[in-house]
């Protein structure tokens, strides 16, 4: 599995747009369909907004990944924010502590090929997912 990284610092709302545009560009290069580019960009937008809203700042890492001839993208959104006290609850449709829709995490899991949430209270949160060209 080979990797190359692209790092998008997330400091404000404007960076959310940069992160999802970066993801879309990489996806287009790798041959993602236009529908899958949009799915990926939407998921990145959700995670990057969580960083801004709940942690203030953080970063999004975009990596081109490959297993054999299969190509894909791995996205990580990470921050050193407050962490999530009940991750299982946070993964539920409609659960939000921010008066929002509560669909960002569960929605991203639904459309990703692979999804993980690692969070430590007081230390931060990292959400990682993969999407493969299909």
């Amino acid at each position, binding site marked *: 599995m080979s990797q190359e990284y692209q790092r998008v610092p997330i400091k404000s709302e404007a960076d959310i747009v940069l992160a999802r545009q970066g993801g879309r560009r990489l996806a287009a290069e790798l041959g993602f369909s236009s*529908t899958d580019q*949009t*799915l990926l*960009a*939407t998921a990145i*937008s959700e995670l990057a907004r969580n960083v801004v809203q709940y942690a203030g700042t953080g970063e999004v890492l975009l990596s081109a990944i490959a297993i054999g001839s299969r190509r894909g993208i791995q996205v990580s959104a990470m921050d050193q924010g407050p962490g999530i006290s009940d991750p299982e609850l946070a993964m539920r*449709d409609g659960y939000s502590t921010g008066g929002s829709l509560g*669909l960002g995490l569960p*929605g991203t899991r*639904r459309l990703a090929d692979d999804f993980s949430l690692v969070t430590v209270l007081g230390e931060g949160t990292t959400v990682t997912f993969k999407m493969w060209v299909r």
Partner: protein
Amino acid sequence: MASIQSALTDADWMKLSADLSSQIGELRARAVVLDLTLMDVMDSFATRVLRTLAQTVTLRGAQTILVGIQPDVAIAMVQLGLAQRLDGILTALNLEHGLDMAEALV
């Protein structure tokens, strides 16, 4: 009628909402047509803001018509579970259809 660009911030949306709300009174509008053709992504933030906007418009006695949601964007909204959050808001393919629909309401 307003055309929405992808990168509106929280503050932009608030302003748009306030503007529309007062313009409905000035123009005695029965319908507000929002053109989303330029939105390359509709995430939960945008969806929630649109829903809030539509609720404001409803309370002002008018109807919201969303037009121009692109095919890929529609599919992504459904997959994320966002589509049902816009239940009850009228939709049309494009500006032309949306204006027809608005005519029909008036």
